C-alpha cells in the first residue's frame, strides 16, 4: 500500500556549499528540463543553472544571489520531485517555505514548467541591482524544540527596542517552526542584530536575502503584476497549502485569486510556514513528509513543527530524533540515507 506523502519545497537558503553539484548528482533524469532551463537562462543573458551547479567552488556572492539561487533551487527540487517513487507514495498535498511557494505552484501543477521558470526566475531576479532590506533568523524554542515563551518575549522586546533605536519597522517575515525570521531595512536589521542576545550562532543575517514577505516589498509586488501575466497560472493538480495555511484544491481554485495571492499577499505579508505544515499534518494526515532538496536545511524547522503538534506523539527533539533513526516520518531527499526511502 502506498504511503500518503506531503511534499515540502525548500526555500531560498537551501543551495549551499554542501549542495554544490546537486544537479550533477541527482539531476540526470531531468536533462531535457535542465537543457530548456539553461537555454532560457542564456536567452535572458544569465549564467546557466548547469554552470552554476558545475562550478568547482561555491561562491556565496554568486550562488546565493536571488537571480541564481532561485532557478538553481528550482532545478534541484524539480529533480527530486520527479524522483519520488509513485509506487511507494501518493502525493496528497504540496507546500513549501517562502520561495518554496513558487516551487509548490510549479510542482503542484499551477504553473507549467516554463511558467514555473518565468515566475521563479523573474521573482528571483527582481533585486539584482540591490536587495531591499534583509532578514535575520533567531530561535524561539528551547533545546528540546519546544516553543519557549521566554525567548519569544525576548524577541518581542528586542523588536520594540530595535524599532526605537532605528526608527525602522521590524516585521515578522517568516514563522519558521522554532525560528522566527525578522525583516526590515538594513538599519532595522542592524538594530535587530544588536538587540537580540546571542544564542549559539544566532542571530545572523541571511546572506543576499531581502526583506521578503513584508510591506517593504510592495514595489516588487507591483512590478510582478506588470511583468507576469495571470495566464501563466492554472488549476493545480494536487492540493497546495500556501503561506497562510490556505488550501488550493485542484477543481475549486480561482486562478485570479491564486495569481493575486502569489504576487500580492504572499510577497508583502508574513509567510507562516509553521501554519502551512501544521495544516498539512492535521488536514492531510500524511504518513510521511518528503522534503525536497537541495540539502535538508528545513529539516530542523519541520522537526520543530512536528514537535509543536505532538505529531505521532513526538513531543521533544529527542523523541523526534529517535523516531527518525528508526522509522522516519520526515524524509529529506538531500540526505542520502533518507533519499533511498523515497526514490
Amino acid at each position, binding site marked *: 500500500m502506498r504511503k500518503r506523502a506531503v511534499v515540502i519545497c525548500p526555500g531560498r537558503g537551501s543551495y549551499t556549499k554542501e549542495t554544490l553539484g546537486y544537479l550533477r548528482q541527482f539531476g540526470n533524469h531531468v536533462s531535457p528540463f535542465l537543457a530548456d532551463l539553461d537555454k532560457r537562462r542564456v536567452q535572458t543573458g544569465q549564467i546557466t543553472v548547469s554552470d552554476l551547479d558545475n562550478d568547482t567552488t561555491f561562491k556565496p556572492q554568486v550562488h546565493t544571489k536571488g537571480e541564481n539561487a532561485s532557478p538553481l533551487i528550482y532545478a534541484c527540487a524539480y529533480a527530486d520531485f520527479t524522483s519520488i517513487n509513485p509506487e511507494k507514495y501518493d502525493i496528497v498535498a504540496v507546500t513549501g517555505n517562502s520561495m518554496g511557494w513558487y516551487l509548490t505552484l510549479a510542482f503542484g501543477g499551477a504553473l507549467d514548467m516554463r511558467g514555473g521558470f518565468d515566475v521563479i526566475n523573474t521573482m528571483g531576479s527582481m533585486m539584482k541591482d540591490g536587495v531591499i532590506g534583509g532578514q535575520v533568523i533567531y530561535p524561539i524554542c528551547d533545546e528540546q524544540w519546544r516553543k519557549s515563551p521566554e525567548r519569544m518575549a525576548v524577541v518581542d522586546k528586542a523588536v520594540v527596542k530595535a524599532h526605537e533605536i532605528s526608527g525602522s519597522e521590524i516585521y515578522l517575515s517568516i514563522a519558521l517552526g522554532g525560528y522566527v525570521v525578522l525583516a526590515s531595512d538594513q538599519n532595522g536589521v542592524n538594530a535587530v542584530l544588536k538587540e537580540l542576545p546571542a544564542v549559539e550562532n544566532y542571530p545572523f543575517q541571511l546572506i543576499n536575502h531581502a526583506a521578503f514577505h513584508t510591506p517593504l516589498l510592495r514595489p516588487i509586488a507591483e512590478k510582478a503584476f506588470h511583468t507576469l501575466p495571470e495566464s501563466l497560472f492554472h488549476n493545480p493538480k494536487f492540493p497546495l497549502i500556501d503561506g497562510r495555511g490556505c488550501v488550493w484544491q485542484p*477543481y475549486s481554485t480561482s486562478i485570479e485569486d491564486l495569481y493575486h495571492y502569489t504576487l500580492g499577499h504572499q510577497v508583502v505579508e508574513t509567510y507562516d510556514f509553521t501554519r502551512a505544515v501544521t*495544516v498539512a499534518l492535521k*488536514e492531510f494526515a500524511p*504518513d510521511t513528509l518528503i522534503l525536497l532538496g537541495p540539502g535538508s536545511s528545513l529539516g530542523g524547522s519541520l522537526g520543530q513543527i512536528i514537535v509543536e503538534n505532538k505529531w505521532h506523539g513526538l513531543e521533544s527533539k529527542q523523541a523526534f530524533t529517535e523516531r527518525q533513526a528508526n522509522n522516519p516520518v520526515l524524509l529529506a531527499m538531500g540526505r542520502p540515507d533518507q533519499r533511498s526511502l523515497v526514490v
Partner: protein
Amino acid sequence: MYNRAEAVDQNFVKFVLEGRFPEARSQTGLAESGLSAAEFMDLFETQIMSRQMDLRARILKNQNECFYTIGSAGHEGNAVWGKAFRLTDMGFVHYRSCPLMIQRAKQVPGSTPLYDTMLSFVASSEDPIAGGRHKVFGSYPLMIPPQTSTIASHLPKAMGAAFSVGRARDLKLETAVMPYDAVVFCSFGDASINHSTAVGAVNSALWVSHQNVAMPIIFICEDNGIGISVSTPTGWLESQYASREGLKYITCDGLSLCDTYRAAREAEQYARNRRKPVFLHMKCVRLLGHAGSDVELTYQSLAKVEATEFNDPLLHSARFALENDLATADEIVGIYKAIEAQVAAIGEYSKTRPKYLKREEVRESLIACAFPKASPPACSEAELRELLGPDVDKPLHLAKQINMSLAETMHRYNAAVVFGEDVAVKGGVYNVTEGLYKKFGARRIFNSPLDEQTILGNAIGFAHNGFLPIPEIQFLAYIHNAEDQIRGEAATLAFFSQGQFTNGMVVRIAGLPYQKGFGGHFHNDNSMAVFRDIPGVIVAVPSNGGDAVKMMRTCAREAWENGRVIIYVEPIALYMTRDLHEANDKQWTAPYPLKGEIKLGEFGVYGESKDLTIVTYGNGVFYSRQAAKILEDKHKVKAKIIDLRWMAPIDKEKLLEEIGSCSQVLIVDECRKTGSWSEWMCGAILEAGGKIPRVKVISADDCFIPLGKAAAAGLPSRDEIVHGALQLLNKV
C-alpha cells in the same frame, strides 16, 4: 443492502459513472445564484468532505472509536451558510452542520476543520472546542458558539444575540463582539421548529421587530421532512411561516447549491440591510437515518428509503457539475475517492489522540474562562453619593438596597443592561428597578414580552455580544418553564467550549415564600433545587440589604470578569421588612454600604455558641434571628446562626469548620424538604464523621403553598425554630 451508509456511498460512485442522476428540482444556474464555477466546485468539495466525515463516523463507531453519529447527510446544502455569512455574523447551528463548519472554516486561513471535527467524533481531549466533552459544532475563531441542543433551545439566545447587535450600536458598546452591521443566523430542523423554544424565539423576534427595533436574524429551517420517525405534515411549515406578518419568508431547494446560495444571499442581504427577521426554509432530505443507531427500515419501506437516497444532494451537485462542464464523471469520482482517503487517514490518526479519563480533567472546563475581562474601577464613595443621593445614609430595606445596587452596577459597567417583565417604567412589581429607567434610559432598562425563555435567551444572547445582562424573573415559579435556558444552555457554554465562550449574567429572581397578603404557590414558590444541581452555577440568596449590595458587587464582577452564570434570588417577603424583633426597631435595615464585597462562599455569622448552631439562609435567617433572641431571653440558650448567603457553591469544609464542635445543629430551610438543601446539609454532617452532632431539620412541608392566611402554614416559623432548638437541647 441493510447498511444504508455503504449503499449511499457505493451508489454515489456508481450513479455518477453511469450517469444516473435525480431530476433537478430547481432550475437556478450559476448566473442566477451569483456563484462562479470555482465557487460551486468549492462548495461541492465541502459537501463531499462532510459526507465522507459522516461515513467515517459510522465506520469508527463500529470500531467503538466514535461516539456520535448524528450526521449531516442530506443536509449538505448547508455548506452555503458557511459562505453566505460573514465571519463576524454569529451563528448558532444545529447538529447537522458539518458542511457549514467546513465551508466557514475556509474563510479563516490555516483552519483544519476536518481534523478538528474528527477529534470531536472520537472525543479526544485535543478537540479544540469542547476538549472531547461532547460532539458539538462550535468554534471560537469561526464565531460559532457550540450548541448541544437536540431541540431548538438555542433559538432564544440567537434571537437575543440578534437583538443585542442594534442595542450595542445604539449604546456604542465598546465591548461588543459583533460589528454593528452584523446579522445572526441559527439553524434547526423541521421537527424542532414545533418546540416551544423555537416558537417562542420566532414570536419574540417578531415582537421586537414589530416595534421597529432592529432584529437582524435569519431563522434557517433545514426541512428534511422527518423528525426521527415522525413525518412533518405536508405544507406545515409554509402554512405557519410563509405569510407571517413581519417575517420575510424565503424558500429554496436544499439539494441545489445554486438555489440555496441564491436564497441565502437574499436572506443575508434582507436581514443585514433591513434589520428584520427572515425565515429561510431549506428543503432537503435526510440520509442515513436520524443517527447511526436509527434503523429507518423499521418505520419506512425500503422503496421509500431508496427513493430518498436517490435524491442525494451530492448526486444533484454532480449532475450540475457535469451539465455545466465543471468536471467529468471520472474527475468527480476522483475527488470523492481522494477525500475519502484523506478523511480515512485523518480518522485513523485521530484515534490515536489523547482522551480525558479522569474526573478532574473533565470538570476542568466547568467554569473556565479563556478570556477573562477586567472590571472598570469600583465606584468611589463620592461617586456613589452623587449617584444615589442622600438616602444612602438612611436605614434602607432590602428592596431599596438592591435597587441602589443595580444603579451602582449600571453606573460602573456600561455594558450592564436590565430587562424583564415590567422592569422599565413601572420599576418592577416590587419597585426594585424603580427609577433605573429614568436614570439609564430605555436602551439599558427595557421590558420583555411575557416569556421567561425569551428573557433568559436574551440574557445569553446579549452576553455573547459583550453585554453584562441582568435579567429579572418576576417570580421564582416562573423560572420553571424556562429552566433549560439556564440548565441546558447558559450553564453548559463554558463546559462545552473550554471557556472560549462564556455568557456571564446575573439573573435576578424575586422568590421564596412568606409573602403576606399576596400569594399562592406561584408567588411564593419555595423550591431552589432546580438551581443547586446545575454544575458551575453560582446561587446567591442575600437575606438583608447590606449583604445584598455587597453580594451584587461580587456577582456583577464574577459575571463580567469570569463569565459566570449567577442566580441571585431575592426573598420577596423581606423586600420591605424593616423591623426584626419589634415594631420600629429597624434592625432589618441598614445604610447603603459604600464599599466592599462578600466573597463567594463567605457565610454570615451571628452570635456565638458551643451548644446550638442554626444553619439557614434567606427568610430562615430572619426567623432564626428572632428565635435566637427568644431562646436567649426566655430560655437562657445562646445560639450561633450561620447565614449561608451563597447556596452554590458551598464550601463544605469551611461550613463544617464553622459549625465546629457544636453539639446541636438546627437546619432551617424554607424550601420544600424533599430535594432541598437541608438534605445535603444533613448528608454533609454525617459524611464528615467524627463526633456527629445532634441534628434537626425544620423545613417547609412537601406541599404547594396555599392562598391567604394559610400561606405560611407549611413553612418554618419563629416559634417552630424555638421549639426545635429546645427539643434538640432536651429542654422540652
